[in-house]
């Protein structure tokens, strides 16, 4: 039974190839169409099938994230299934993660059944813009 592992790193190799051509040596071959390598691992690669089946939209989305990560040199987190003793695994989840601190709390609105979007709580709050200074009185 394959092990489910996770690895994070930058993509150093990204390939898409013809259906059925596979990747890797005969004893560690991946029957996949999309292949990538991360700088976090010295050897081995990950891949997944990209075929015209029910999984196609999700797999295309996974591949799009890989492309974005490669083009923008972003780290990517991949969950993959790999057999013990093998170096190549099948990726099942691809994620882009960015540490970011929220500057402002999220703006939230509530949509009722009527379809009308209600304003968020901040809409009822008083304006925070400072008042302009009062004009000086004219000298009599």
């Amino acid at each position, binding site marked *: 039974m394959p092990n489910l592992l996770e690895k994070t790193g930058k993509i150093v190799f990204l390939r898409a190839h013809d259906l059925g051509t596979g990747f890797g040596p005969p004893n560690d071959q991946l029957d996949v169409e999309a292949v990538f390598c991360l700088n976090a691992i010295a050897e081995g690669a990950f891949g997944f099938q990209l075929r015209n*089946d*029910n*999984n*196609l*939209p*999700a797999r*295309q*989305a*996974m591949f*799009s*994230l890989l492309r*974005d990560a490669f083009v*923008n040199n*972003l780290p990517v987190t991949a*969950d993959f299934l790999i057999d013990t003793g093998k170096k190549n695994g099948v990726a*099942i*989840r*691809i*994620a*882009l*993660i*960015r*540490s*970011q*601190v*929220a500057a*402002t*709390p*999220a*703006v939230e609105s509530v*949509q009722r059944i009527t379809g009308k979007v209600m304003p968020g709580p901040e809409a009822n709050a008083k304006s925070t813009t400072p008042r302009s200074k009062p004009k000086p009185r004219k000298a009599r």
Partner: protein
Amino acid sequence: MGHITFLRAHEVGSGFGKAPNFLDSEVIVELAEEPLRAFGFQLRADQNAPARTDMFDILRSAFIAGRPVRLDYVTTGPRAGEIIRVANP
């Protein structure tokens, strides 16, 4: 509305989270402004696929550019929501 900190695509049916916040979705999003909540939508080979693909593309471009996104969602759990609309504010 907020900035995306986590954007994931995964295999059909693998889902995200635990009950009661389980999301039966293929795309998962987390926002910096809502760190305890996860959002998602299905991306399957059905009649919704073209629209959902475009929603995903907006999320991708927003993540890369660091732009905020506006998500309309239906609450499916205390800390989970199913996205129905994605917009650049």
